[in-house]
C-alpha cells in the first residue's frame, strides 16, 4: 500500500500539470489539435490511476480544455470521484469541473446527491461553500428536491459566509423545484433583515429576481422594502430594491405616490450615477402607473427629463446610452415632454456609436409628426446608404417602416412618396427584411385605394427589372418584394399601363430561379393579368392580339409545369389547361373574356389579424379530437416538425432604380387630379386652384429630370422619393394658401368636409392634410365573432411561460390553506429525506397570509371579476359538450359521493377565507394610506395567519375520513374572487359548483389512458389546475399512487391536461 502511494507520487512528478499543459499548447501553435489529442490520451491514462491527486490534476486540465471547446463529458464520473475527495484542494477542483460541464442531462449527477449533502453539512465552512457554489451551476430538479431541506437549514447557519450562499442558491432551487418556495419563503423574508449586509443583499437579490417574474405576489413585502430603502446605505441593495419597486408600482398606484418623495430626495442627494439612474427609472415607472391625478406630477416628469438630458449631454457614452434608454420609457406616456428634446435626439442619430444610434432610433418613433416625417425619413435613408454592417441597416429599415406605418399611417400625407420610399428600400442588398417591405407594399396597395394606380405602375417597373433585382447572391431576402409586386400587378391589373408587357415580364424564364412561393404567385397572377388582357383585347376588332397572348401563355407556362415546387407545378398546369381551352374557344371566335375574368372577380379586403381566432367554433366540433389515430412514437421522433407552407430561403436579387416614363407621369398626374377631385377635402377647392397646382413650375420640372434616366439607376444618392418631398412641400404650400382663403369664406363647409374625412387620422394642430383620402379599409372580422377582451394575452408569450412557475407555486400554495398532502415540502420518494420539524411546519403555515394581501388593490379585484366573467361565459359555451360527457363519466366515477365531499369542502374554504383576507387587505391598506412606516406588519401577518389557520383544519378533517389522499382543490381565484357574491346568493354558488363538477368530468375525459385507472378507483379526485403550469405538478399522492398533471393549462379553456400516474 505504502509502496503504491510512493509510486503514485513519483508518477505524479512526471505528469503535466495545468501550467505545463498551457505552455505546451502555446508551444504547439501549428499543430494544436494534435497536441491536445495526445494530452487527452495522457489524461485518460491519469484518470485510470488510483491516486486521487493524479486524478484531480487530470480533471483540472480537463476543465481548461473544456474552455477551449473540447467535450469532456466522458470524464463525468471521474469528476464525481474528485468531488468526493476528502481534501478541500481536490474537492474544489472537482466542483469547479462539475460546474463547468455538468447539466441536467448528465446522468452521473444523481450519484452526487449524498456527497453534496455530506459537504453541505461539513464542519468546514469552505467545503460547504464550494459545494453550494458548484450546486448553483448544475442543480437539477432532483437535486433541488432532495437537497431543499438541507439548504434551507443552511440559511440559518451561524456563519454569514454560508448564509449568504445558501440564500442565494435558494433561487435556483425554487426554479427547479417550485414546491419549495412556500416553506422556504418565511425564512427568506427573515433574511431581509439579517444583521450581515452580505446576507441581506443576497436575500434582496433573490426576492427581486422572484418578484421580477411575478410582482403581484410580492406586493405585501412593500412596507419592508420601503424600510430597507430608507435605511440601507449599500448602493447594490438600494439599486435592487428600487428596481423592484419599479416592478411593483404598476400594480399599486398608491405605492407609487409614497415612493415619489424618497426617490426624489435620493435623486437630489446621491452621488452615485448608477443609483441616480435607477431612481429616475423607477420614478418614471411610478409616473407611468399614475399617469394622471398627481398634483405635482409634471414637476417630477420635468425633473426626470431634465436629469436625463444631463445624462444624454454627458461626454460619457455610457450615460448617454442610458439616458436615451430611459427617455424611451417616458416617451410612451409623456411624449410631449420628450418631444421638446428632439434636437438632442436627432443629434444622437449621427453619433459614431451604434448602440447610441439604435437607442435614438427607438425614440424617433415618438418624434415624428405629419410635418417632419418626410424630413426624418430622408435623414434615415441617408443613414441606410451609409450603414455598413447589416444589423444596423436592417434596424434602420424596420424603423423607417415602423414610423411610417404607425397608427394606421397616421403621419403619412403622401402615399406616392411612401411607395417610392419602399421601392427605394428594395435597393438594399442582403437585408433580411424583404418580406417586411413586401407586406407594406401589399398593405398600402390594398388599403389605400387611391394609390393603386401609382402602386401598380411602380410594381410593373419593378417586375420588368426583376432580372436586376435577382442578382447572384443567395439568401437575399429582397426578392420577397417581387411577391408583392406580382400580386399587386395581378390583382389591380386594370390599372396597368401596358399589361402585355408586364405579363411578358412575369413569364420570363429567369423567374424559374425565384423561390417557389414567389413563383406560385407569379403564375397565379399571370392568369389574372391574362384575364384582364383578354377583356381589353376582345373589344377590338382584330382578334389576333388576343390569340397571340394566349399563345404566349401556352409557350411560357410549361416551364412552370416542370417546376419542382408542388404549388407552382399545380397552379401552372391548371392554368395551362385553362388557357389551352380558351385558345380553342378563341379559334372558334367565341367571346370568353367575361367568363375568364369572372374567375378572378370580387375584391379582396384586408382581414384583421385576430379574425381567425374569433371565428366561433361550430357546435359539435371538437377541435381536440383525433381525426386519425395519432402516429406511433417512433415515427414522430425522427420527423422534424416542419411547417408545410414555410417559405423557401429567398434568393438574392439586386434592387434597382425604377424608371419613370413620360406616359406614366402623365397618368400619374391625371390620377392624382382624379383622386383629389374625389377627396372630400378637395371638393371645396375651386377649379382654379387645381390649375395652379398643375402649372406650378416645380411640378413640371422635376418629372422631366426623371424621364431622362434611360438607364436604370443603381447609384445611391438620387432617390426618387425626393421628388415627392418637393411635390409634397408645394402641395402643402398651396394648401395653406387655399386654406387661408377658405377660412375667410367657407368656414362652415370646411368643417363638414373634415367630418367626412374620417380615416385620415386625428387632425393635428398642424394644418397638413393628406394628399389622398387614406381610405384605410377597416379589417374584416368574421360574422358572429366572439367578443372577448383577452385578445392581448398571448398564451405563447415566453414571458408568461416564465411567469408560470412562480405564479403557480405561489398561487396554489400561499393563497389556500394547507392540505394534508402538502405538509411536507419534499416530494420525497426516499426515507432519507429529512423529516420536517414542527417549527418548519409552522412557518409553512405562516406563509399562507402572504398572498391574500395583494388582493388589497381594488383594480385587481375588478380584473379578477372580469376574468371570472370570461370564464363563466366560456363555460356556458361548453356546457352542452360537457353535459354529454358528464353522463358518461358519472358511472366511471362511481357515484356522487366524492362530488359531495368536494363540494362541502369548497364551501367551507370559501367561508373560511374572507376573514383572513380582509385582515390582510386592511393591513396593506393601512400602510399605504398612512405616512409612517409601521414596523409591525409581520405581527399583523401572524395574527392574520392565526385567523387563517382554522381554515385548513376543518376541511382537512372532513376529507380525512372519506379520502385521505385527496388534495385540496386548488382553490381558485374563481371561488375566491366571487366570494362576496356567493355569500349573498347561495343558489348561484351551488350552480357554479355544479359547473365546476362538470369541469372535473371534462378533465377526466382528457386524461383517458393513464387517468382512467384512478378514476375507476374513485380514490383520486382531480383538482382544478387553475393557474397555468409549465411543468409537472403534483396533484395527489399516497403510498401507492402519485398523480401529476402537465399541460398548457390555459385557465380559460380547460384544454390539454395530461395526467400521469406513477
Amino acid at each position, binding site marked *: 500500500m505504502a509502496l503504491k502511494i510512493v509510486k503514485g507520487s513519483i508518477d505524479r512528478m512526471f505528469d503535466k500539470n*495545468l*501550467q505545463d499543459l*498551457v*505552455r505546451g499548447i*502555446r508551444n504547439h501553435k501549428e499543430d494544436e489539435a494534435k497536441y491536445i489529442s495526445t494530452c487527452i490520451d495522457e489524461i485518460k491514462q491519469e484518470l485510470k490511476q488510483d491516486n486521487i491527486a493524479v486524478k484531480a490534476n487530470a480533471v*483540472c486540465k480537463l*476543465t*481548461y480544455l*473544456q*474552455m477551449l*471547446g*473540447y*467535450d469532456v463529458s466522458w470524464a463525468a464520473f471521474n469528476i464525481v470521484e474528485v468531488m468526493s475527495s476528502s*481534501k*478541500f*484542494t481536490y474537492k*474544489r*477542483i472537482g466542483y*469547479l469541473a462539475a460546474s*463547468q460541464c455538468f*447539466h*441536467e442531462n448528465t446522468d452521473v449527477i444523481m450519484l452526487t446527491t449524498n456527497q453534496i449533502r455530506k459537504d453541505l453539512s461539513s464542519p468546514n465552512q*469552505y467545503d460547504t*461553500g464550494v459545494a453550494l*457554489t458548484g450546486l*448553483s*451551476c448544475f*442543480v437539477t430538479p432532483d437535486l433541488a428536491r432532495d437537497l431543499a431541506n438541507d439548504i434551507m437549514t443552511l440559511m440559518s447557519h451561524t456563519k454569514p459566509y454560508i448564509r*449568504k*450562499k445558501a440564500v*442565494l*442558491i435558494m*433561487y*435556483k432551487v425554487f426554479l427547479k423545484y417550485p414546491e419549495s418556495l412556500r416553506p422556504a419563503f418565511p425564512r427568506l423574508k427573515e433574511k431581509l433583515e439579517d444583521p450581515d449586509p*452580505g446576507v441581506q*443583499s*443576497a436575500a434582496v*437579490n*433573490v426576492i*427581486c*429576481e422572484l418578484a*421580477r417574474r411575478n410582482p403581484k405576489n410580492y406586493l405585501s413585502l412593500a412596507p419592508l422594502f420601503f424600510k430597507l430603502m430608507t435605511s440601507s446605505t449599500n448602493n*447594490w441593495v438600494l*439599486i435592487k430594491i428600487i*428596481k423592484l419597486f419599479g416592478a411593483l408600482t404598476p400594480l399599486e398606484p398608491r405605492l407609487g405616490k409614497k415612493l415619489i418623495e424618497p426617490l426624489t430626495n435620493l435623486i437630489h442627494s446621491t452621488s452615485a*450615477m*448608477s443609483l441616480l*439612474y435607477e431612481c429616475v427609472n423607477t420614478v418614471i415607472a411610478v409616473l407611468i402607473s399614475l399617469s394622471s391625478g398627481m398634483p405635482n406630477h409634471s414637476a417630477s416628469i420635468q425633473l426626470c427629463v431634465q436629469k436625463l438630458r444631463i445624462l444624454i449631454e454627458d461626454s460619457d*457614452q*455610457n450615460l*448617454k*446610452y*442610458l439616458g436615451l434608454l430611459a427617455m424611451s420609457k417616458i416617451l410612451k406616456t409623456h411624449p410631449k415632454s420628450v418631444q421638446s428634446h428632439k434636437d438632442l435626439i436627432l443629434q444622437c442619430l449621427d453619433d*459614431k*456609436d*451604434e*448602440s*447610441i444610434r*439604435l437607442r435614438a432610433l427607438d425614440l424617433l418613433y415618438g418624434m415624428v409628426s405629419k410635418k417632419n416625417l418626410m424630413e426624418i425619413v430622408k435623414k434615415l435613408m441617408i443613414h441606410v446608404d451609409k450603414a455598413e454592417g447589416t*444589423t444596423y441597416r436592417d434596424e434602420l429599415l424596420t424603423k423607417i417602416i415602423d414610423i411610417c406605418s404607425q397608427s394606421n399611417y397616421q403621419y403619412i400625407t403622401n402615399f406616392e412618396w411612401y411607395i417610392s420610399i419602399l421601392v427605394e428600400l428594395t435597393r438594399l442588398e442582403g437585408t433580411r427584411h424583404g418580406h417586411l417591405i413586401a407586406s407594406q407594399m401589399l398593405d398600402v396597395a390594398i388599403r389605400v385605394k387611391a394609390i393603386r394606380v401609382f402602386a401598380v405602375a411602380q410594381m410593373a417597373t419593378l417586375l420588368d427589372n426583376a432580372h436586376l433585382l435577382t442578382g447572384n447572391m443567395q439568401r437575399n431576402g429582397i426578392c420577397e418584394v417581387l411577391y408583392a409586386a406580382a400580386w399587386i400587378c395581378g390583382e389591380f391589373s386594370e390599372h396597368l399601363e401596358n399589361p402585355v408587357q408586364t405579363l411578358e415580364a412575369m413569364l420570363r424564364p429567369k423567374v424559374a430561379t425565384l423561390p417557389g412561393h414567389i413563383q406560385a404567385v407569379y403564375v397565379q397572377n399571370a392568369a389574372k393579368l391574362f384575364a384582364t388582357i383578354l377583356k381589353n383585347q376582345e373589344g377590338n376588332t382584330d382578334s389576333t392580339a388576343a390569340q397571340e397572348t394566349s399563345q404566349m401563355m401556352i409557350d411560357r407556362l410549361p416551364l412552370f409545369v416542370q417546376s419542382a415546387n408542388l404549388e407552382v407545378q399545380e397552379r401552372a398546369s391548371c392554368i395551362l389547361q385553362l388557357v389551352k381551352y380558351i385558345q380553342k374557344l378563341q379559334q372558334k371566335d367565341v367571346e370568353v373574356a367575361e367568363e375568364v375574368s369572372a374567375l378572378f372577380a370580387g375584391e379582396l379586403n384586408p382581414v384583421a389579424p385576430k379574425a381567425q381566432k374569433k371565428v366561433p367554433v361550430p357546435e359539435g366540433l371538437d377541435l381536440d379530437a383525433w381525426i386519425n389515430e395519432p402516429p406511433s412514437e417512433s415515427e414522430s421522433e425522427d420527423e422534424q416538425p416542419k411547417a408545410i407552407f414555410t417559405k423557401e430561403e429567398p434568393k438574392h436579387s439586386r434592387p434597382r432604380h425604377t424608371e419613370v416614363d413620360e406616359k406614366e407621369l402623365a397618368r400619374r398626374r391625371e390620377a392624382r387630379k382624379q383622386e383629389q377631385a374625389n377627396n372630400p377635402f378637395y371638393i371645396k377647392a375651386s377649379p382654379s386652384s387645381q390649375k395652379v397646382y398643375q402649372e406650378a413650375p416645380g411640378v413640371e420640372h422635376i418629372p422631366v429630370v426623371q424621364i431622362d434616366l434611360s438607364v436604370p439607376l443603381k447609384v445611391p444618392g438620387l432617390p426618387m422619393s425626393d421628388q415627392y418631398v418637393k411635390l409634397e412641400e408645394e402641395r402643402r404650400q398651396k394648401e395653406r394658401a387655399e386654406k387661408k382663403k377658405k377660412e375667410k369664406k367657407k368656414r362652415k363647409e370646411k368643417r363638414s368636409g373634415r367630418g367626412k374625412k374620417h380615416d385620415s387620422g386625428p387632425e393635428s394642430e398642424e394644418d397638413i392634410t393628406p394628399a389622398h383620402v387614406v381610405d384605410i379599409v377597416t379589417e374584416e372580422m368574421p360574422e358572429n365573432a366572439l367578443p372577448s377582451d383577452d385578445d392581448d394575452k398571448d398564451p405563447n408569450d415566453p414571458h408568461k411561460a416564465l411567469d408560470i412557475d412562480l405564479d403557480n407555486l405561489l398561487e396554489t400554495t400561499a393563497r389556500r390553506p394547507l392540505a394534508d398532502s402538502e405538509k411536507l415540502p419534499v416530494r420525497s420518494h426516499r426515507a432519507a429525506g429529512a423529516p420536517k420539524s414542527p417549527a418548519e411546519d409552522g412557518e409553512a403555515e405562516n406563509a399562507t397570509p402572504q398572498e391574500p394581501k395583494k388582493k388589497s388593490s381594488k383594480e385587481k379585484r375588478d380584473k379578477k371579476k372580469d376574468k371570472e366573467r370570461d370564464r363563466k361565459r366560456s363555460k356556458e359555451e361548453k356546457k352542452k359538450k360537457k353535459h354529454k360527457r358528464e353522463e358518461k363519466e358519472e358511472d366511471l366515477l362511481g357515484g356522487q359521493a366524492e362530488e359531495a365531499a368536494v363540494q362541502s369542502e369548497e364551501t367551507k374554504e370559501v367561508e373560511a377565507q374572507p376573514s383572513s383576507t380582509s385582515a390582510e387587505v386592511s393591513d396593506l391598506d393601512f400602510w399605504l394610506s398612512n405616512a409612517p412606516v409601521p414596523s409591525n406588519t409581520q405581527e399583523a401577518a401572524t395574527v392574520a395567519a392565526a385567523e387563517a389557520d382554522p381554515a385548513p383544519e376543518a376541511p382537512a378533517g372532513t376529507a380525512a375520513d372519506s379520502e385521505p389522499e385527496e388534495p385540496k382543490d386548488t382553490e381558485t381565484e374563481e371561488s375566491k374572487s366571487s366570494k362576496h357574491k356567493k355569500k349573498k346568493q347561495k343558489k348561484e354558488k351551488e350552480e357554479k359548483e355544479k359547473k365546476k363538477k362538470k369541469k372535473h368530468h371534462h378533465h377526466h375525459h382528457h386524461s383517458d389512458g393513464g387517468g382512467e385507472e384512478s378514476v375507476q378507483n374513485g380514490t383520486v379526485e382531480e383538482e382544478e389546475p387553475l393557474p397555468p403550469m409549465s411543468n409537472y405538478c403534483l396533484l395527489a399522492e399516497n403510498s401507492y399512487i402519485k398523480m401529476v398533471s402537465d399541460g398548457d393549462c390555459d385557465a380559460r379553456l380547460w384544454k390539454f391536461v395530461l395526467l400521469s400516474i406513477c
Partner: protein
Amino acid sequence: MIKAILIFNNHGKPRLSKFYEHYNEDTEQQIIRETFHLVSKRDENVCNFLEGGMLIGGSDYKLIYRHYATLYFVFCVDSSESELGILDLIQVFVETLDKCFENVCELDLIFHVDKVHNILAEMVMGGMVLETNMNEIITQVDAQNKMEKSEVIL
C-alpha cells in the same frame, strides 16, 4: 441575472468562460466568437453596452464589457441588473484580480485560470451577484488558499 461571464484577449482567445446556463461546447465557442466579433470592432471611446448578440440572450439581454489592455471582460446580463452596477462589478473583479495576483497581466490568467474561477466564485454565484466588497472577497479567497497550502504540507 448574469447569463455568462467571458474573458478573452484582443485576438479572441478565451481566457475564462463561465456560463450560468448550459450550452454545449460548440455553442459556447460560437458565443465566444460572436461576442468577440461584436465587441472587438467597437472603438475605444464608445459606450460599454451592446445589444444584438444572436446566440446568447435575446431582446432582454445586453452585453456589458470593459476593455483592459489586452483583455476584454464581458458580462452578459438581463434587464434585472443595473448597467452601471455591472460596470462597477467588472471593475471590482479586475481590482480583486490585481490584488490576488499582484499586478495582474494576461499571463496570470492564462496559466491560472482555476484561480480566476475561484475568485469569481466568491463574487458571482449561479448568475447572481454574491459579494461586491473587495476586501471580503479577498479575505475568503486567501482563507481558502491557506487551507490548500496546509493540505499540501500534510
